[in-house]
């Protein structure tokens, strides 16, 4: 098998606060292949954004720190790069799109200037050439009147337009990996559809791998190949989207899917919901972190931390002690029958 584009191994990112150490990301490992579309889902505080920030080396000591682990990108550990090398990676080889395009764009520079800055930083081109590349980039994200847009400021654009500019900026240097952190959460649903279609179409054209961080399982189902679910700083389940949605192996994934109201459901049934609230990352429960909210917890769940292991179909993994004995799928079906 070819070498993966990105390999994260036992990554731990902690933040120190007055109340104690926040274990935002606590021992996660995963790989991302070239041209793959990986979805990372989880609720707030599950560690999905910190994972992305750690990869981009945007965690700044002393507030937070990558404590252990390796992040191997194209064969080299990003954690060993110095700041100058990292600058070359950021925006050049790994681009990132944030949730809120207004805070990600500089309000006092024109769109054109900001695009050209990125281009000239990463490619050896003249100002004139950078201008042309920027112009094409704006045309690629289907913004009409590209020339005049170059002269506009971020506040003159709508949220959807700003996010298009972010995509143009992110893809202008043909990165190998695009990390999109909740790219459409701030947008309306019709705009969300436009932006997701555009972003993934452009990424496909360029052969860019996409890591999509979101809390929206619907978006993952529609736009990703593979998915991993995060909970309390760890990955609790991974697999292809087909596997995970049809046959969840971890009780949290199962609960999450049952919590969702689905638009295509004719009958009004009761949502399953997950009781309780996510754990404090300062004071994590012993053993399995999901145990206090889990309907299936037994003694062993309090004693030992469950590691990811094969469960369900080939390629599917779950961090649950009881993954292989529980038949969550049939519990779903029983519920549907009785409902």
């Amino acid at each position, binding site marked *: 098998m070819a070498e993966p584009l990105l390999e994260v191994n036992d990554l731990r990112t902690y933040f120190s606060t007055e109340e104690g150490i926040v274990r935002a990301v606590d021992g996660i490992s995963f790989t991302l292949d070239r041209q793959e579309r990986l979805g990372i889902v989880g*609720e707030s505080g599950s560690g999905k954004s910190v994972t992305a920030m750690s990869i981009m080396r945007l965690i700044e000591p002393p507030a937070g720190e990558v404590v252990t682990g390796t992040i191997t990108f194209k064969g080299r550990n990003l954690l060993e790069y110095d700041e100058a090398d990292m600058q070359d990676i950021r925006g050049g080889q790994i681009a990132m799109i944030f949730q809120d395009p207004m805070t990600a764009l500089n309000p006092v520079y024109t769109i054109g200037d900001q695009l050209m800055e990125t281009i000239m930083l990463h490619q050896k081109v003249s100002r004139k050439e950078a201008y042309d590349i920027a112009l094409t980039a704006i045309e690629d994200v289907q913004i009409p009147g590209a020339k005049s847009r170059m002269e506009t400021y971020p506040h003159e654009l709508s949220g959807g337009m700003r996010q298009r500019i972010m995509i143009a900026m992110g893809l202008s240097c043909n990165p190998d990996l695009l990390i999109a952190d909740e790219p459409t959460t701030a947008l309306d649903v019709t705009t969300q559809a436009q932006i997701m279609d555009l972003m993934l179409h452009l990424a496909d054209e360029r052969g860019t791998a996409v890591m999509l961080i979101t809390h929206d399982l619907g978006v993952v189902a529609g736009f990703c190949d593979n998915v991993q679910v995060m909970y309390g700083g760890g990955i609790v389940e991974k697999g292809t989207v087909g596997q995970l949605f049809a046959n969840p192996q971890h009780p949290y994934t199962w609960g999450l899917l049952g919590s969702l109201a689905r638009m295509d*459901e004719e009958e*009004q049934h009761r949502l399953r919901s997950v009781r309780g*609230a996510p754990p404090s990352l300062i004071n994590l429960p012993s053993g399995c972190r999901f145990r206090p909210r889990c309907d299936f917890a037994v003694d062993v769940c309090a004693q030992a931390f469950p590691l990811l292991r094969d469960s369900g179909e080939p390629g599917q993994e779950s961090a649950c002690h009881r993954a292989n004995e529980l038949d969550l799928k049939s519990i779903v079906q029983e519920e549907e029958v009785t409902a």
Partner: protein
Amino acid sequence: MTEVASTYDTTAEISDDHILRVDNLVKEFPITRGVFFKKQVGAVHAVADVSFYVKRGETLGLVGESGCGKSTTARSILRLLEPTSGDVWFNPEGGDPVNIPTANKETLRNLRRELQIIFQDPYASLNPRMTVASIVAEPMTVHNVGTKQDRLDRVKELLKVVGLSPEHTNRYPHEFSGGQRQRIGVARALALNPSFMVLDEPVSALDVSIQAQVLNLLQDLQEELGLTYLFIAHDLSVVRHISDRVAVMYLGRIVELADRNALYEEPMHPYTHALLSAVPIPDPEVESNRVRIILEGDIPSPANPPSGCRFHTRCPKAVEGVCDTDDPQLRELAEEHWVACHYPEVRKVF
């Protein structure tokens, strides 16, 4: 179309089955220029002639994208904002209908017991310096209900009803999670035994697993207490789940209103088609077979809405000479299925 379409009748007497009826509601916000002599130079037409009714005991969902006027509609109904024009008839059980926009102070004060609202942001809607007991008791204090001890007993009862522990009375909002805070907001809204509740995006600030808890709670309360809900949200999946009927708003207008299954399975307005087709469904198999209707451009400014049909600038079916000049009225094209479109057509989108 063979059926004769009828315009929604706003002149008839309010039916006993209807707890609320909104007739031709308009809310405009003036745009002013100048510092001392504020001169009005225009207006934002946030709600432009909206009419609908809410049946007793039902949940009416009001959906639309940001800026479509759904929250302004709700606030104008409750007179948290003064409507520019229009009537809002509230019809209490066994009482006479009251027109909220013209009600005097005393009547309005009494009405407020019946009408309650739950807000989106459970972090902003609770006073951080008040204890849970005083937050939940406040409506009773304001309306002089019971003695201090009565109120405390009621607070404890309410906390139990919304799934919190009665021992939490002396805690402050910051000690609670988002889901728990929203429960406190629900307890406060229930304090005066209202019959009608406006839920303004009550779960959009919450995580998915917590959303389900709060939605279940709201449904249980409705069943136990016979409440009527006006449920405002942008999440179409949640709206289908909780509503009996659904109204879709676009740029200050209701463009389609129907029974939940009719609206989702047989939508007729091109905007509803686009909206529904854009919502991702958490099922990869379903998603792989879907066709999205991608709308061109952005929502126009409500300060300067398009002529004719407000949707015609983005509508894939717009016909020149009709849609850009004639403003379509809501017509009943199937039983209890109102659509404001010159060229309505049933189209399944998933």
